[in-house]
């Protein structure tokens, strides 16, 4: 059974993993790639445990030039922001 339903705009793009991620209760991250999303996959899995979430999204947003679409839709900014050393 899916642990949760999460909208794609609540997931964060992780440059290192090249995947959209969302916190997993085990401490790791649920992950789904753009390629998965283009194929209509809606399950994001955690690599460290058996849990998975259902991702709510529009497949069309990822079919053509997904990067451009994402910016135009004003979704969450990517997680990889510069970290300030105060």
């Amino acid at each position, binding site marked *: 059974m899916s642990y949760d339903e999460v909208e794609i705009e609540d997931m964060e793009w992780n440059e290192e993993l090249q995947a959209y991620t969302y916190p997993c*209760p085990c*401490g790791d991250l649920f992950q789904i790639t753009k390629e998965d999303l283009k194929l209509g996959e809606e399950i994001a899995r955690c690599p460290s445990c058996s849990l998975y979430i259902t991702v709510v999204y529009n497949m069309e947003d990822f079919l053509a030039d997904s990067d451009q679409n994402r910016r135009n839709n004003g979704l969450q900014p990517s997680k990889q922001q510069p*970290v300030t050393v105060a």
Partner: protein
Amino acid sequence: MEESKKLEKKDESEQRVWSWGAGTEGQLGTKILQDELFPRLLHQPSLSSISSLACGGAHVIALTSAGKALSWGRGNSGQLGHGEIVSNALLPKAVMSLDGYFITHVAAGWSHSGFVSDTGCVFTCGDGTFGQLGHGDYASHCLPVKLSCFVDQRVVQVACGMRHSLVLLKDCTRTQVYGFGSGKRGQLGVGNNKVKSVNFPRVVNGFEDDEIVGIAANGDHSAAVSVDGHAYTWGRGFKGFEDAHLPHCLNSSLNFIKVTLGWNHALAMSAEGEVYMLGGNHPGVLNISPPAKHLPESREVNLERVPGLDGMKITDIATGAEHSVIVTGKMTWGWGEHGQLGLGDTCDQMSPVTVSLGYDLNGAESIKVFCGSGFTFVVTIPLILLKL
């Protein structure tokens, strides 16, 4: 000979710290990146006078009786406050930039951290993508930064959830709670209109004249307890109930002294040592719903007595994302895939089961429990420290 005698003596009064559960980010303090299914006694000289711990997604902050903060575990967002981004830190390391302050309270969220000093200052560091650091922007910081907006006020507590934070302010006449970060599920408690996120502290409404003495945040939930024993929750609805955008006082005549939050459940402890639960048995983690005694009115989620504890006096509670720990004889239940229940296996438990630490408490100490998302810490704390 002298030396070994001294060591032996020290050992008797030494504080003991155990950890278990998910450990692949070094959060257990065991110096290895590995899950532990059984309670593991830590041998860390730096963890010798802990007064409190805060456990987050995969990092831990320890507060010593001398007012120093140490941190370890995952550090990829700057949440350890060491001034650098590290994937993880295996050993407790002092948060050096706070050396000039006596720290009295610490909090650990999914990937951010909060520190409060005895002078009433609050500092945050880590992931700021959702405004959860409260500095008026969405920047992340790997050194604790003081929240300048509270400069003339006295902050006493901070709480960090998945993507939001709460701060408790106290002056001679009243208390106030502030929230910042993601507010999509109502977890900021700033009102009924949906707030996606705020990056600057906003006052939480709805306590009227109730004096708040404790706050908690985890997942997309928030909670507070008042001096009169009222417990409030807000944020994501439990068990599929609607999200609450303002604090909601639990409908109970019990005198609550502590509320702790998971990602889909809450525990509330009464002054009489009873423990009640909100939510729990979340689909996708624990599918089996045991028959629960429901209260007659069901417009809101029911407060349920935790089963199997009749006649036991509970002295402390803690909740991870999907598991719970209570202190009586130290019992755990919930999701156990990473060994976070400390029972030696990866099974789930629907009701409390006793964890064996293989240690008898002496009369001069008390046991405190702390949970991160998928892991657990137990600390023996001398009673003299608790009275401070």
